[in-house]
């Protein structure tokens, strides 16, 4: 099981990032999120969602999903995003196993239903 993100449905609202951090910090922050909206190419209106799993960094780009094994060199043709670096230091997705009432918090909060469980 894992989190699946439809980047074309995403409206770049950052709620998943907040909800993920909340499930670790019990407060509102973006500090510990392992799901992060990449939004640094603002003038190009290019955005999608990054997900850190234990072994993989998944990049849900509008043009499709890119999966990188953590520790291996990323595709040199794709520009890295400012959001990637801090992500690598964070814990990977645990599917919110402690959130009994909700399941994955990112899925529960996404207003655009861009996140599903597969």
């Amino acid at each position: 099981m894992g989190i699946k993100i439809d980047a074309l449905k995403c409206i770049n609202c950052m709620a998943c990032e907040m909800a993920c951090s909340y499930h670790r910090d019990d407060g509102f922050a973006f500090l510990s999120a392992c799901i992060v909206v990449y939004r640094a190419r603002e003038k190009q209106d290019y955005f999608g969602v990054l997900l850190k799993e234990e072994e993989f960094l998944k990049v849900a780009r509008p043009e499709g999903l890119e999966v990188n094994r953590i520790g291996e060199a990323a595709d040199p043709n794709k520009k890295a995003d400012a959001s990637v670096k801090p992500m690598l230091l964070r814990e990977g997705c645990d599917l919110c196993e402690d959130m009994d009432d909700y399941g994955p918090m990112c899925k529960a909060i996404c207003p655009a239903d861009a996140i599903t469980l597969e």
Partner: protein
Amino acid sequence: MEYLSTGKILVIDLATSKIEETALDESLVSEKIGGAGITKHLCEKYLNDDPIVIGTGLLTGTTCPASAGGLITAKSPVTGKLCHCPIIYKVGIEIKFSGYDYIVVKGVSDNPVYLWIHDGVADISDASGIWGKDVWESTDSLRKLMGDDLIQTMVIGKAGENRSDYAQICYNYWSSPDRFGLGKLFGSKKLKGLAFRGMGLIEVADHENFVRRSLEILKEIKTNDFMTKKGIAEIASAIGEAGIKEWLEPIVHRHSADYFTPYATNTAVFFDEDPKRVEESKVAEPGVLISDVPALLAFKKLGLSAEDTGRALKACAKYGIDPAAVAGLSGKSSLKEIVDSFDGLSGTVALKGKGIFSPWCPLKPIFNDFGLSGDAAEAEAWWERRQAVAMIFGIQPIFSVMCPELSEENMLELAGIGTELDLTQEILDKVVADLLK
């Protein structure tokens, strides 16, 4: 103030370069709740120093749906009235997470400066390197200087530096709801702008209940038909502008939302790149992000094509001038003439209602009727109250006029759960009445 808040107010004196921090007292929150209730109080407290107060709402940056908002409160240099300009996109939340609930900027600087506010630290920095640059160049420069592309900015362009009555404070690269000439106020203080970044943590009194209620409210919101729609043309269409969707569609790239706002109120249009391109554009500046419904409609009414409207909006955003004022006052109907009119613009833009909230937010209910009868005076009074409440709690203003589920009752309930304060309808009524005085 321990909860839903950083607990800190920053007071910056541009005349003396003195920076002070004061505590946000719980008693003030109990009396004024937050957002516009407190920014107005701070404006009155520092009245003799011509203050600009930047703030966030009590619910800003939480799991309350649409809690994206912040605001700038100041005396408009154009109308002479105290006004509240919404802060949109992701700028409002960055202010709170940078470590401060409220920032008072008083006095006048001798030389151009910008304020860098990050992780509970504030600096006044020399802006001579960016004074003279347009809004886009200024944001690019600040992000490059600090080495962080996610820095959120409020900056002025040439219009503000030249103290035009129509100068806007712009957010990142984009036009803002500033219809009050607040860009002129920045210019007259020699304040080029502010840059925010922070990774703070906002504590919640009863976080489990707060999140549970937030998700219940979200669930109710998601039953609305508007959840199948996106973007600015749908908003314009819903308030009666026929043909706008077909007119804009050929240049639409994508729609995006302010922080946790369930409806994507912003639409990016591309005119120097294929709008249907899904990969990252190789063009540095392929288009513009539009959040201003009245300005979009005003350029359309002048007879401009959608592409020329996009180009006019981009030129306004770079120059830092209110696009609605340009469309309404330039008297021109070609792109070149419109862009050439920025410096010589004159005339008065009438603000609706009491002139304290920005008519950037449509003055009608959108997608829902909120039980209004259709009477114009009733609608105006409803709109002003809705704006006041949105500005107190930190709710995205356009979403607040489309979503009945974000009721005063729900907002008060979340604020109470989040703070453990007894925030009642009577207190809210009093704060709203004071704002509308």
